[in-house]
């Protein structure tokens, strides 16, 4: 049984993407994912108008 709720998520996504995650790597992957999600939440909580266009095709 997974020790951390994020471990279940890591297992599921690793399976969906066919990504290997060996047990020895798991703590570092989890720690990195926690940082990524914490920073992503900082962006997520910022309200943007529905009409906002992504900058995926970007011109400075």
């Amino acid at each position, binding site marked *: 049984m997974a020790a951390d709720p994020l471990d279940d*998520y*890591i297992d599921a*996504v*690793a399976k969906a*993407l*066919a*990504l*290997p*995650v*060996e047990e020895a*790597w798991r703590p*570092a*992957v*989890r720690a*990195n*994912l926690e*940082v*990524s*999600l914490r*920073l*992503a939440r*900082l*962006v*997520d909580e*910022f309200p*943007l108008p529905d009409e*906002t*266009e*992504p*900058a*995926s095709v*970007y*011109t*400075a």
Partner: protein
Amino acid sequence: MTVNSDGLSAQQIAQAVAGGKLSALDATEAALARIAKYDSVLNSFTDITADRARAKARAVDAAIAAGQKVGPLAGVSFAVKNLFDVKGLATRAGSKINRDLAPSPRDATLIERMEAAGAVLVGALNMGEYAYDFTGENVHDGPSRNPHDPTRMTGGSSGGSGSTVGGALVPIALGSDTNGSIRVPSSFCGVFGLKPTYGRLSRARSFPFVASLDHLGPLARNVGDLALAYDAMQGPDADDAACTTRPVEPVAPLLAKGVDGLRVAVAGGYFQKNVFPEAIEAMARIAKALNATRTVEIPEAARARAAAYVITTTEGASLHLDRLRQRPNDFDPAVRDRLIAGAMVPAPLVDRAQKFRRWYRARVLELFQSVDVIIAPATPCIAPKLGQVTFTLDGVELPVRANIGIHTQPISFIGLPVVAVPVPLEPMPIGVQIIAAPWREDIALRVAHALERMGAAAAPAPRGLS
């Protein structure tokens, strides 16, 4: 042929070569001799292209002997981060895995343009694996070392580029900057670095990292050389989808215009937090030299840094997904674990980061209606020791790797042009970012040139080589 090219700037070498006072071959041999003598300390090179360099130098000399016009970089040695394609070499991009790629059939566009201007490629340079790095350390090739103290980091990921220019082995190196990878090594190694506007310089035939954020640019020991290289590399290129169609806009003739009339402000708030005393001192010196008394707040800079992080980790993961599946044990484990985590960030959060990027860009561009230049630290500290994992700031222990780029990421996130200028503090230099509006590299370079003339910015002689 009496001129000794050691210690000469690129401009001086090119003038001496064009004027028949120095042969391109002698200049090239001198660069190769410096590399042979000092790179055992710096570990900045991974490949030395001596045969190719001698052939190119002889061609430059033959052109001069035949009375043909040679370019503004005639006989000037340069080297490139090893993510640039070099004909005949596998483009390793700091990795073990890419060494199995076929040799590149053609040089990167920027190498072709440098050589069209008469420059001579002498080799490829060490870098952090796949450019996902701020330290200049590399588990496969060993760390590049700081020319002012070889026990310290160069910064990364263009670590070899900072090291070799800081060590004066070659006058010009090319690097890449996704979140700070030109500006950080420029700061730690005490050299000038230009991260141009996103899309200004072609990335064709270089190994990518984060397509949304990748830039290429030069590092040099003075602003004149930086501008010379930048001008030689400008111009549209259909082989890079993000490359601008703007015409070449030469900056070298504009450098002497000075800073009169330019409105300079200091970045406040976020950019004045988490900085060590040396960064505060460097900022104070540059602000004083430019008579910058105004402070501007770049809005939501912390969130911009967060969004840059999210886009970086997810686009990087996408790029390397197959390699993560097939050869996970051939990565630097630290890079692999970051990339695997990046592959697991939900897609809506990435989309929101790209939407936030456009919002943030609009707010920052509003600032440039009332200022021409914003100055900010390039790094929060001088170069840490190699292998150093944490540093302590205001009594709080912080991870080194995650904090080196906190001041560069919110700027490259929206592609603004920046010159990192070295402030020659003792015992180690540290850089300051000179930030301008999009496509105004000329302004950032003019300010850097003025700071150099005032003595506020300078590339110190390498203190770690004897």
